[in-house]
């Protein structure tokens, strides 16, 4: 044992961390994913692509797949249209109240998505506030169906309002990284504002834009809460969910839910860890290890992994907040953990019926969710500062 440790330059403490990490990944990611994959690819007769084939050929399923793709694309487009002007405004111009606006823009990130959905339903439903107001004023005689028959656009707008901060953060970072002299050079060569943006600024922002777009797309593609609230059932996430609830005794359902959450978290995880790895890979000490003959596995485990751990841990703490939000959304909707287990999302859902007479029933669990998520985010910030070697003095 000790010789093994010495061979890999490990002390017992970081060996324990490494082992814990591997166990964590195996139990919480590899095993459920393996479960999902075996169920998806193996029938009683062994390996089979029959389910995959079904997904892409059966008209019922292809429509669902197409709906989800369309939803993802539409949400990506909407968040782009919303975030691009915001990013340009906030990065390029100075005005009073800028800091405040910057903070307000990010609020949807700490709110469970269904909060917005309920609000929007209150406003835009057939007998929602806007229609009632217009009827009262005599502007219209029949309530207008704002959300359209299939609620598709309702889901799109809600997802866009929930996800635009992710797009905004990516675009703002990309924009702030554009070298000002590159833009000045274009102006100097005769480019007006429009040409400047389309030929120089935006092309230089593209990597950041794609990063944001991929996250938004996958998020919208896999989101369950918003389609459920709007009762828009013809998307992949809701279909998975239905299959899961139909088969109460089938443990596979849980695996699907884990898979959906894992898919979302993985996107962000993979991005951060990948960029950290790319940076570490170029470091001299890694090159030196390769030069003296360290094997690939050894380089990855001993030299790279410990150095990308801190961003990974930070993301993990940030994602505790995310998972609380996702869980509360599921509980609010009456799914997820059994009703006998009290959760904030569940209480919030129960309190909804009494909002007019006993607002505190819904208010305080909502507040508790908000405070917890904010608290976990602050903790994540602190961990990041604590682990960042550049900040340590």
């Amino acid at each position: 044992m000790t010789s093994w440790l010495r061979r890999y330059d490990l002390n017992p403490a970081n060996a324990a961390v490494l082992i814990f990490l591997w166990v964590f990944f195996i139990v919480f990611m590899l095993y459920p994913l393996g479960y999902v994959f075996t169920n998806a690819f193996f029938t009683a007769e062994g390996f089979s692509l029959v389910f995959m084939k079904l997904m892409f050929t059966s008209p019922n399923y292809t429509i669902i797949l197409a709906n989800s793709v369309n939803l993802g694309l539409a949400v990506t487009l909407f968040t782009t249209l919303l975030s691009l002007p915001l990013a340009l405004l906030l990065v390029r111009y100075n005005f009073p109240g800028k800091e405040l606006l910057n903070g307000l823009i990010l609020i949807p990130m700490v709110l469970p998505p269904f909060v917005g959905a309920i609000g929007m339903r209150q406003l835009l439903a057939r007998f929602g506030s806007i229609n009632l107001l217009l009827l009262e004023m005599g502007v219209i005689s029949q309530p207008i169906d704002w959300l359209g028959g299939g609620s598709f656009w309702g889901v799109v707008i809600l997802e866009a309002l929930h996800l635009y901060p992710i797009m905004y953060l990516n675009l703002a970072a990309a924009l702030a990284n554009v070298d000002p002299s590159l833009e000045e050079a274009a102006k100097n060569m005769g480019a007006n504002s429009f040409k400047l943006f389309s030929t120089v600024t935006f092309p230089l922002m593209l990597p950041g834009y794609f990063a944001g777009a991929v996250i938004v797309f996958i998020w919208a593609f896999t989101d369950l809460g918003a389609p459920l609230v709007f009762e828009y059932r013809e998307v992949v996430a809701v279909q998975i969910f239905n299959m899961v609830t139909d088969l109460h005794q089938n443990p596979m359902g849980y695996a699907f839910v884990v898979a959906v959450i894992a898919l979302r978290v993985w996107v962000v995880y993979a991005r951060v860890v990948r960029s950290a790895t790319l940076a570490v890979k170029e470091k001299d000490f890694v090159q030196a290890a390769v030069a003296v003959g360290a094997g690939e596995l050894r380089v990855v485990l001993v030299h790279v992994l410990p150095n990308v751990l801190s961003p990974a841990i930070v993301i993990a703490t940030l994602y505790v907040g995310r998972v609380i939000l996702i869980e509360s959304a599921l509980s609010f909707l009456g799914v997820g953990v059994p009703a006998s287990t009290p959760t904030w999302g569940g209480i919030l859902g129960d309190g909804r019926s009494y909002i007019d007479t006993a607002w505190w029933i819904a208010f305080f669990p909502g507040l508790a969710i908000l405070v917890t998520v904010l608290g976990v985010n602050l903790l994540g910030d602190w961990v990041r500062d604590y682990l960042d070697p550049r900040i340590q003095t």
Partner: protein
Amino acid sequence: MGSVKFESVSKILGQSRAVNNLTLDIGAEELFFLLGPSGCGKTTTLRLVAGFYTPDEGRILFDGQDQSRVPPHKRNTGMVFQNYALWPHMDVRSNVAYGLKMRHVSEAEKEKRVRHALEIVHMQAYAERMPNQLSGGQQQRVALARALVIEPDVVLLDEPLSNLDAKLRVEMRTQIKDIHRKIGRTMIYVTHDQAEALSMADRIAVMRRGRLVQTGTPHELYTRPESAFVAEFIGGTNLLRGTLEEVGDLLTVKTQAGIVRAKNGVKRMARGEPVFCSVRPESLRLKPAAESSGIPPSDATNELLAEVQSIMYLGDNEQYSLRLADGAIVRAVEYNPTTRKAQVGDRLALQFDTQAVVVLPQEELSD
């Protein structure tokens, strides 16, 4: 075509006047240098010409036309940036063609002019390369081609050579000067490197703390500086502290180390005024003190006694550091040093012509 005129231009950045009441005439087809230490306002001045800044006071005219409020993309200037600012997502050809595309030049014409511009900077073989596949010097030349291809009224160069290594920098000086001669356009060139300015410029404007200090040809600035700052900044000099004793055909200055007489000086200085005598290191002749009679050999010559502090041998020249009677240190240069003139600790007589001395008002020099 291409004259630029500043009329009492000021630009306020933050709390300070980055450019303060600047009046300047830059002639057509001139290779004009803005020279000064960092933070003197020379880059701000250049950016005012490009239109990235608008003046807070005063006007900027191109060929008599007020351009103060014209946005950068409507001024016909071509700028070369310090960091080259080549667009990394376009190849060399697209980078150079960009300005022509913005001007809706026809394809055939564009093709011809891009090729010509790349030929001027000897980069025609690299048209398909991406900027990150080029060395610093090559990127620099592409940036120059990009600025020239639009046939600008004024070419603006912002410390274009400062990111290149020393040898390449000297090579590029000649190339840029050649290009200027070939294309015959006004060029405004910003640098803090006085050797670059002296070797290339038609005329130089020296700036300090946002103000114009002196304008002139390299020769004028070097031989007739009007302030101790210019004398010190351009070429380096010895400044002997003293008091002006007599004004007339010859100026007589009493220094702690002895009397210095000068042929040249700034006008309107009164007797009794504290002054600097500027003497260039190469104007000092070193004679053994034993050969000196103690009196200057002629009326046209000064003589001061000094002791050798240190000697630095640099091959083509030898630099002496000498201590005068009052403790002040002066530098002297001997070119083509075949035999050593003195050893450390030797006492020498420093002889220099009255013609080589410029009397200047005292001022604070640290910047």
